[in-house]
């Protein structure tokens, strides 16, 4: 593995790892806020107990989110120093604002987790509000930096160096809004499904009756609100990508040759050598319609861009299908869960419904990870689209393979630790046990 490949693999693995905890760091605060709010409003203390039951896993997951995020901010310099020397003045603003959001988040999380005996019930609920806002806002900020990499703005290139830097313009780049909205909502969907799946499994095993049902209806209500928005904002994102990132769109859709009345290609394996897609389903004219609202419109293919400036569709198209496919899996589970309740006023979810929810549960995070793969692989070979290639950005240090292997081990150790921690049977005696 050469240095560049090791750096890309390490960056990708670190981000894929971090985003799991970041997602929960965005979604869980909202769930806490809703549960504590319901406890105050209805006077039903079960909601409060439910929320407090989440704080142990939340504490661990947030801690891992913080340390994995630290890895990332160091890796920007350790792996991509030339990228940061180029981009720091433009994307630094987003990261600086994110820094304040992190502070707010860490502070109010600590107050919520440790404050049970020192704060009133109302104050505890109030702490969840800045917590929820700060986590959503931190996503919106960091995504601005990513949007800038996809659609750079706010500077001019003069003699090979950026000049006339306008940080606010860079912040409000073309990809920012759709990515921020779609990407933040994704965290809510993914968390809601993860929590729902957890309780569905518990109920299937005959545990946690009352609280489990409460948690299930809370998380699936959240999913019911957020999931349709995924379709709407995803469509918006695709439109925006068609407009500003033509090569990414072509790779997403495995659309090799520029053509009118382009079909939508679902599934299949794209082959860049022959510019064909094998084993795919084709829906005539649909791509033209989706991308340009006109069934006969011309859609640029990968051939419309100079050689060596386009992403590899084998890394992009399958992930795009996986994201959209996951949406439909989750949508089905939601319909199956809510339809009988709404039409037939049933109040108890049946076993089949629970199984369906449990099956759909991982697809939130699957969709989210694959959506990010679409965005990131779809930008290649650029780190700053049109300006700086990934290969130009990488550090001159060698031995990156060793660093990659080291961090892979770190992630593995953390994952094993978390798994064991979350699964372990608590000792009935309880109490904090000292380590000596």
């Amino acid at each position, binding site marked *: 593995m050469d240095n560049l490949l090791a750096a890309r693999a390490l960056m990708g693995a670190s981000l894929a790892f971090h985003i799991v905890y970041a997602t929960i760091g965005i979604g869980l605060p909202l769930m806490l806020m809703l549960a504590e709010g319901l406890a105050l409003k209805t006077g039903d203390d079960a909601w409060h*107990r439910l929320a*407090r*039951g989440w704080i*142990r896993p939340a504490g*661990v997951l947030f*801690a*891992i989110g*913080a*340390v994995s995020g*630290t*890895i990332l*901010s*160091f890796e920007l*310099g*350790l792996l991509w*120093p030339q990228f*940061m*020397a180029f981009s*720091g*003045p433009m994307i*630094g*603003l987003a990261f*600086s*604002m*994110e*820094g*304040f959001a992190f*502070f707010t988040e*860490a*502070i*109010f999380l*600590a*107050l919520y*987790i*440790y*404050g049970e*005996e020192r704060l009133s019930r109302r104050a505890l609920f109030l702490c969840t509000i800045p917590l929820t806002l700060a986590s959503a806002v931190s996503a919106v900020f960091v995504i601005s930096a990513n949007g800038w990499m996809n659609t750079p703005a706010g500077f001019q290139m003069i003699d090979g160096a*950026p000049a006339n*830097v306008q*940080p606010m313009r860079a912040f409000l780049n073309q990809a920012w809004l759709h990515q921020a909205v779609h990407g933040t909502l994704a965290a809510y969907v993914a968390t809601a499904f993860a929590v729902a799946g*957890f*309780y569905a499994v*518990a109920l299937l*095993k005959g545990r946690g009756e009352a*609280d*489990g049902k409460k948690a299930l209806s809370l998380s699936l209500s959240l999913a019911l609100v957020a999931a349709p928005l995924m379709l709407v904002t995803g469509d918006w994102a695709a439109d925006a990508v068609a407009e500003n990132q033509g090569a990414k769109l072509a790779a997403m859709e495995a659309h090799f040759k520029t053509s009118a009345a382009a079909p939508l290609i679902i599934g299949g394996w794209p082959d860049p050598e022959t510019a064909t897609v094998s084993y795919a389903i084709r829906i005539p004219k649909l791509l033209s319609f989706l991308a340009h609202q006109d069934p006969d419109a011309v859609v640029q293919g990968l051939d419309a861009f100079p050689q060596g400036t386009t992403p590899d569709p084998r890394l992009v198209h399958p992930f795009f299908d996986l994201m959209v496919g996951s949406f439909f899996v989750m949508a089905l589970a939601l319909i199956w869960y809510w339809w009988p309740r709404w039409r037939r006023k049933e109040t108890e979810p049946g076993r089949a419904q629970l199984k369906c929810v449990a099956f759909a549960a991982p697809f939130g995070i699957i969709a989210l990870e694959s959506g990010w793969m679409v965005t990131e692989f779809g930008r290649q070979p650029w780190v700053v689209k049109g300006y700086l290639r990934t290969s130009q950005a990488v550090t001159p*240090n060698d031995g990156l393979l060793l660093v990659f292997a*080291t961090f892979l081990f*770190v992630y593995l150790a953390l994952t094993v*630790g978390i798994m064991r*921690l*979350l699964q372990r*049977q608590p*000792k*009935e005696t*309880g109490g*904090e*046990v*000292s*380590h000596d």
Partner: protein
Amino acid sequence: MTDPVTLAAMVLVVALMLYALFGGADFGGGIWTALAFGPRAREQREALFNAIGPVWETNHVWLIFIVVTLFTAFPSGFAAMFIALMPPLVLALIGINFRGAAFAFRHYGRETGRDVPLSASVFEIASVLTPFTLGMAVSATASGTITINYGVTATGTAVWLTPFTIMGGVIGLAICAYLAPVYMTVRVAPPLQNDFRDAAIAAGVALGVATAAMIPFALRYAPRFSQRLLESWPMLFVVLAVFAGVGTQLLLLWRRYRWAQVAAAATVVLTLSGFAAALAPDLILGEMTLEAAAAPRSSLVAYLTILPFGALILIPSLAFLYWTFRGEPSSTLPPAGAESDSPEKM
């Protein structure tokens, strides 16, 4: 004074101080859980753990803030440092990760005895590794060993592994080990208070010895830095730091813990001020000035503009946090297993 480069540099130094004062004390807590002594070793560890619990994540954000400020305001300096100092920074990162994880596992986990010794020793080792390597990295920027020729930053062990940077790492450790017990003296009652007083006095001596020992190393291995530090006005900070350090020891002896806490913090602030004053106007000694490393003016102005808004949110929240968790550290988490009917008990 008001030019944006100087202001941004001052923000960077202040952030470094705050990280040392808050984050450093958390690392010190880890160091003293390893060094816990006497008949109350167990109580010492418990108190340290419970004190760190609610605040470590917030204190950790100061490090993020430093990194972000560095790449926003001094992007080319950031790039050069992260190329030259990759090995110590990677080690620091590994320490940060295992420390955070080990702490969280011990704190939120449902301890079963079996795992606790593992996470405890990981926590202790990582609490030593991280301040040491970060101290190395910070002092390397002043050692004069980082070189940049025609925009190419040199790499290799000679850049970051010198007797000077090793001493820098030792001082980093000593600062952390010094702050934690001083802060603890105001938060616990005797007899634990006396233990932390003894620990603080010992650590104060260690810090004094380490900084005094640094002088010959600096003269020999970082001559330019020591010249700037000792032969000009930054020397004033050194003198004041010595006074503050001696004062802390006396206040500890007299059991004036509140004042000792202030004096200890002042010692650290003055030490870092001396370092920064000697390094200025460079970011990387002799190779890159702050001016040369700085981002375009518009970026600096944007960065400096958001700071007051951020501070407006941050300062009251921080005050509320430290106020809420003042006094005797306690474990306000429900004991493991108390959430009796939650289904995560699988």
